[in-house]
């Protein structure tokens, strides 16, 4: 029962907090949260909820190909948003594709967080030459748009391994490429806070009792500097999803056997000229809705967690 009461106490505290209040008072934020939740549920439960299994060739039939959405003449309610040229259900493909886009987005945010936090901690705590080198690398990388950096990393990996191998590990390549192109913001933020924290007494005390620098950084400094990371991560999730979609659209991201939203839009784009607009329009709308909702949540979080704006 103790667990239950502490949970209800926690619930009470949470419902009484400023953050919850600012959430409830903004209808736009609530709408964004609902859309995000809806997309998350529909996409992650796609194996259970999707009407078809679009990437199992045995269930496809070419005679179902290029059906328009159900409300149009020739439409079929078995395929609510129509089918593509191979008879795949567009709605199911979108649900599976969104899941893949989200997985890549979240994983690459995690990778850039890991790199950014580590380098930021080391840079801020050690200082000196290490700091200068890391920050100059960050400066040079910031000179280039992230999408170019990701493209370049992808191109280098293609040069190093064979084409078949690349298709197998495309998922990891793209997560690494996007992750490596967004670490700078985390590193700069963390470094700034670490430089303030490291002169405080608790860090000096930890040093005096002879703890190793790694232990001080991870156990003592890190918990005190992670505040802004959540906001950056939310805003970067939108950017990472867009980057993945853009790379896949350019044909250097996920292969058509493993289509994300960007891949679906690229495949549909090839059929756009002949009038089959639904194959590319519906994934585009899903992508736009997802990114818009996540961005609105990120904006709200930034304002809600910023005490200066209260």
């Amino acid at each position, binding site marked *: 029962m103790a667990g239950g009461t502490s949970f209800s106490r926690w619930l009470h505290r949470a419902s009484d907090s400023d953050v919850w209040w600012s959430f409830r008072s903004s209808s736009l934020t609530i709408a964004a949260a609902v859309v995000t939740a809806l997309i998350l549920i529909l996409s992650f439960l796609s194996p259970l909820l999707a009407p078809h299994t679009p990437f199992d060739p045995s269930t496809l039939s070419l005679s179902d190909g290029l059906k328009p959405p159900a409300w149009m003449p020739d439409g079929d309610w078995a395929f609510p948003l129509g089918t593509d040229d191979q008879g795949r259900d567009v709605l199911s493909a979108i649900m599976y594709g969104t899941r893949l886009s989200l997985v890549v987005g979240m994983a690459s945010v995690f990778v850039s967080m890991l790199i950014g936090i580590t380098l930021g901690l080391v840079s801020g705590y050690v200082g000196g030459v290490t700091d200068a080198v890391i920050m*100059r690398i960050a*400066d*040079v990388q910031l*000179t*280039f*748009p992230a*999408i*170019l950096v990701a*493209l*370049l990393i*992808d*191109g*280098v990996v*293609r*040069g*190093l391994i064979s084409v078949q191998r690349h298709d197998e590990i495309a998922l990891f390549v793209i997560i690494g490429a996007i992750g490596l192109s967004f670490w700078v913001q985390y590193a700069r933020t963390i470094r700034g806070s670490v430089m303030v924290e490291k002169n405080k007494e608790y860090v000096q005390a930890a040093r005096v009792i002879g703890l190793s620098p790694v232990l001080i950084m991870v156990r003592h400094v890190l918990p005190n500097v992670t505040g802004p990371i959540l906001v950056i991560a939310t805003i970067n999730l*939108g950017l990472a999803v*867009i980057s993945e*979609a*853009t790379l896949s*659209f*350019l*044909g*250097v991201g996920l292969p058509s056997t493993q289509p994300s939203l960007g891949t679906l*839009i690229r495949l549909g*784009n090839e059929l*756009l*000229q002949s*009038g089959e*607009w639904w194959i*590319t*329009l519906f994934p*585009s709308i899903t*992508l*736009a809705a997802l*990114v*818009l909702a996540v*961005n609105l949540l990120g904006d709200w979080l930034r304002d809600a967690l910023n005490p200066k704006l209260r």
Partner: protein
Amino acid sequence: MLAFILRRLIQSIAVLLVVGMVSFSLFRYVGDPISGMVGQDTPASEREALREKLGLNDSAPVQFLHFIGNAARGQFGLSYRTSEPVNRLILERMPATLELSFCAAVFALFVGIPMGVYTGLYPRHWSSRLFQAVSLIGISLPTFVIGILLILVFAVMLRWLPSFGRGETSTFGWWTTNFTSWKGLQALILPSITLGLFQLTLIMRLVRSEMLEVMRTDYIKFARARGLSNRAINFGHALKNTLVPVITVTGLQLGSLIAFALVTETVFAWPGVGQLFIQSVQFADIPVMAAYLMLIGLLFVVINLVVDILYFVVDPRLRGQGARAAGR
């Protein structure tokens, strides 16, 4: 001021050297340059001779110096994919990208600044709110989705404008241009809007927030008290003071305009440098990638430098404290 510019110049050269080092390591260590040049049945002795002739057996620093020297003269070797000289490939496609980026920048500035001024002056008017909402969507939509939607509406449904390629072009020396024929200009419209829309929303939001801030200052109140006309206050006093951040952002965005042109070029099958780069990534065509990287690096460094110098020209407050700005 001179000290400041000199310092920035040295920094710029350092950045370029780092970019050169990355390009060089790509060139040298990713894939074998020899296997791209010779057939499969070339004997090992011949390969070794070619290796020696190209200087690939020299020490890495010597090779790096050669690479930088060649890059400075615009020599990047042969493309692995087409076996043509890389500099010719890029030069052929440069005009298409530059004309597209130029039109997009003009569109973004000449629509974005007036919209920003308007929404900043009348923040509560319904049309300002509409502009704000649209700009939020404009920032969230990826470039290629905007392009596809424009193609769907204006090329597929309405059939007003072409959806791919440059249309008619004329050639002057090595420069091919779209500006001489109606067909060529028509082909420019959709790609320019696609490429410029993100920058437009960015400039609009920036000008708006700066205008809102400036309109609250004392010197605007004083100008009103002096009985100046609205026109003189809004444009002569207020807008002029919002221009410093606008110049910075626009300048820095100019570089990403040319970089993001690669997405727009893919959507509209526009035969520019960006499309060349995408193809070279797909085929792991390292010499083209290295050359593109150096080119974009040079571009960004030059833009950053020009923006920094423009600060001094635009903002007289900075000139007095030049020494302090240099020490930042």
